[in-house]
């Protein structure tokens, strides 16, 4: 399972690099959306590994609230661009 976690961390590095090197705000938002999903799934994997379910609950909360926050941010950026 550890090698699976290392592969997940590698998969997480790609959007982090993308968010760092791209200047367009929408490309950064894409990268952040991808980072949010990947980190919460990694938290779920770790909670199954350790069989500790408080981490699992935190992972599901991070998943839904994180994506909701990104949606609000997307609307904010849209309004800012219109102004």
């Amino acid at each position, binding site marked *: 399972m550890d090698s*699976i976690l290392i*592969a*997940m961390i590698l*998969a997480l590095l*790609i*959007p982090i*690099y*993308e968010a760092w*090197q791209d200047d*367009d705000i*929408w*490309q950064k*938002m*894409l*990268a952040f*959306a*991808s980072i949010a*999903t*990947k980190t919460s*799934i990694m938290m*779920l*994997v770790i909670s*199954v590994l350790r*069989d500790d*379910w408080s981490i*699992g*609950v935190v*992972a*599901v909360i991070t*998943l*839904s609230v994180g*994506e*909701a926050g*990104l*949606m609000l941010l*997307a*609307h904010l*950026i*849209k309004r800012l*661009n*219109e102004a």
Partner: protein
Amino acid sequence: MIDTLSYGLIIVGIIFWFWGTLPLIGNRSVLFKLHSLSVSDTLGSMAIVVGLLLKIPNEWSLLVLAIMTLAIWNTVLGYVLAYCSSSNEKIINKK
């Protein structure tokens, strides 16, 4: 048998992740990247969570909640990002 199936599902999920994330680095349009990203992130993550579900079935309620959250929130986020970024292009064309 169940273990190999769950590891297989998790590996398929990780392959989906890599397949969806690699075009992110290229300089294609936002919508092209968004399509491959939201498809791969949602399906890949759901394959991983189903793989976890097979591994430890006693906490199935939390993992089913994660699958539903993923299916709903990730697709709606993809839609919102597409809507907000494409309305941005309309404004630029108007100027």
